[in-house]
């Protein structure tokens, strides 16, 4: 399944020059910083950096963008854990147990768990991608609208399970979200539920909706308190406890692996990365012998959500590289970057530039290690900032 000649060429491409590696740390840092601010998105950060792309060679540009993507996938977990505000829809599942851990003064462990799960998820996804990039691409192209509908309905039914015994409330919230998602113009251009406001013709914008639902609600919730954690000694940043959190991640290999596999699979589908964390969280909860602990600060909740969220990058990249189909905003901007170098993603690209595809995968595996170090330093420095 692996083209060994192309793999050797990829190693040569990456090893023959230090230039592709120059952009890795800046890319990860930009991704981390941008996504640590709720409301800013990966696609937005990638779009801002697009003017830089023509000044890089194609491989360097791809590595830069995947580094930003990798940093962003962990960055979303930071406000999710500390503020109960997911940096994007991809980190909603992380808030369920991450914020209760922060409230209990275990924010160091929670961030350590999120970082290690994110790194492991990405590594697992790219290893999988390295082995089965071509078969995955062939499978993804067979998925049509009926299959997408089934995946969406599956996602909706799983939402109902997330809040345990309140099945009707969960389903009602899902139905409400479904209707909110149809606000705007119909297929034939009739405005629905817009109150005559032109800005709603394209629907409810996702970023303001997330900021409003999570950030504004949390703002009102925090008004009566001075700090999320009142005890000063439990607010400190502690490197040892972050490392303990990172170590504890590997005490739940089943949750980690299940999240990584689910995330990779869903990342292949358009919009899949946004629900990967929720589906993985729901599955981890379903499989647990003590599901009532989820939502109260259980490490398995963070591991499940973060590993799936991070591994969805590998799936998204597989669809982008092999089919030339963006599965989300970030990969859509990457496709624009392809165009800047007069390259079109898709089966022909996979066939003719397999060495570059493998080089991107190998560099992404290296980025996982760098993300571990940079992410740890980022938490530590930001915590003292």
């Amino acid at each position, binding site marked *: 399944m692996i083209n060994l000649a192309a793999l050797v060429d990829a190693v040569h491409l990456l090893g023959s020059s230090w230039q592709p590696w120059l952009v890795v740390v800046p890319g990860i840092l930009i991704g981390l910083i941008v996504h640590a601010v709720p409301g800013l998105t990966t696609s937005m950060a990638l779009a801002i950096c697009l003017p830089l792309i023509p000044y890089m060679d194609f491989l360097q540009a791809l590595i830069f963008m995947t580094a930003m993507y990798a940093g962003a996938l962990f960055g979303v977990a930071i406000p999710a854990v500390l503020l109960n505000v997911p940096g994007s829809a991809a980190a909603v599942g992380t808030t369920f147990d991450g914020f209760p851990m922060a409230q209990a003064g275990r924010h160091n462990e929670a961030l350590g768990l999120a970082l290690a799960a994110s790194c492991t998820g990405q590594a697992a996804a790219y290893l999988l991608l390295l082995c089965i990039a071509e078969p995955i691409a062939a499978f993804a192209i067979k998925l049509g609208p009926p299959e997408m509908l089934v995946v969406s309905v599956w996602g909706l039914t799983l939402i109902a399970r997330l809040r345990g015994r309140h099945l009707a409330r969960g389903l*009602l919230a899902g*139905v409400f979200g479904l209707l909110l998602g149809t606000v705007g113009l119909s297929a034939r251009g009739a405005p629905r539920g817009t109150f005559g406001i032109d800005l709603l013709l394209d629907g409810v914008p996702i970023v303001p909706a997330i900021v409003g639902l999570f950030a504004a609600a949390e703002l009102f919730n925090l008004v009566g308190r001075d700090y999320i954690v009142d005890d000063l000694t439990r607010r400190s940043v502690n490197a040892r406890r972050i490392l303990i959190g990172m170590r504890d991640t590997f005490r739940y290999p089943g949750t980690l692996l299940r999240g990584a596999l689910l995330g990779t699979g869903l990342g292949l589908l358009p919009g899949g990365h946004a629900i990967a964390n929720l589906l993985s969280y729901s599955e981890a909860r379903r499989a647990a012998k003590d599901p009532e602990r989820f939502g109260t600060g259980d490490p398995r909740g963070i591991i499940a959500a973060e590993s799936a969220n991070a591994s969805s990058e590998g799936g998204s990249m597989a669809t982008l590289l092999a089919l030339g189909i963006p599965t989300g905003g970030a990969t859509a901007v990457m496709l624009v970057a392809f165009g800047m170098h007069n390259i079109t993603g898709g089966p022909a690209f996979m066939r003719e530039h397999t060495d570059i595809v493998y080089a991107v995968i190998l560099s992404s595996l290296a980025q996982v290690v760098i993300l571990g170090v940079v992410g740890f330093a980022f938490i530590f420095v930001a915590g003292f900032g």
Partner: protein
Amino acid sequence: MALSHPVISLGGSKIAVDVPHLAFVSAIVGWCVWFCRDAWLAQADVENLIMIVPAAVAAGVLYVFVAAGCFKVVGRADGFGTRRPLHTGVGVKIAGTMALLAALVVAGPLVGFDIASFVYILATLLLLGERRILILLLAPALFCIVVVYCFDTVLPIPLPLFFVAGGAP
């Protein structure tokens, strides 16, 4: 002390009603019904309504189950749980924060988001008890500069500003 709920008498039984929860769920389902009607009036064909009508009907059915849970016979062990009242002054602060946020949304496009954001942060800090002059002036100013710069750089649509990019909106 837990919050008390209004009690109604029905057939000799006393039933407590979780009014805030009932009102919240009613508002959500009310919007769903209104949205379904609006969509129907906009384009009354299957293509438009194939998902909206079933979803609105589902919302109505689910409402019956959720709303039923807002009524409990007084004295039963599985009541509404222990929702505690807000501390003195916190309710006023929450209402004030909501009002200020609404004012920011309304005033931003009119006077410019730089001025509106500055005043919003300053007023929120004051409302929440900050009294140090340096913090009251520096925090809003710094936040406004960063946010205005970022939005000016990022947004494809110009943000209405008072001091930057051509003066008053």
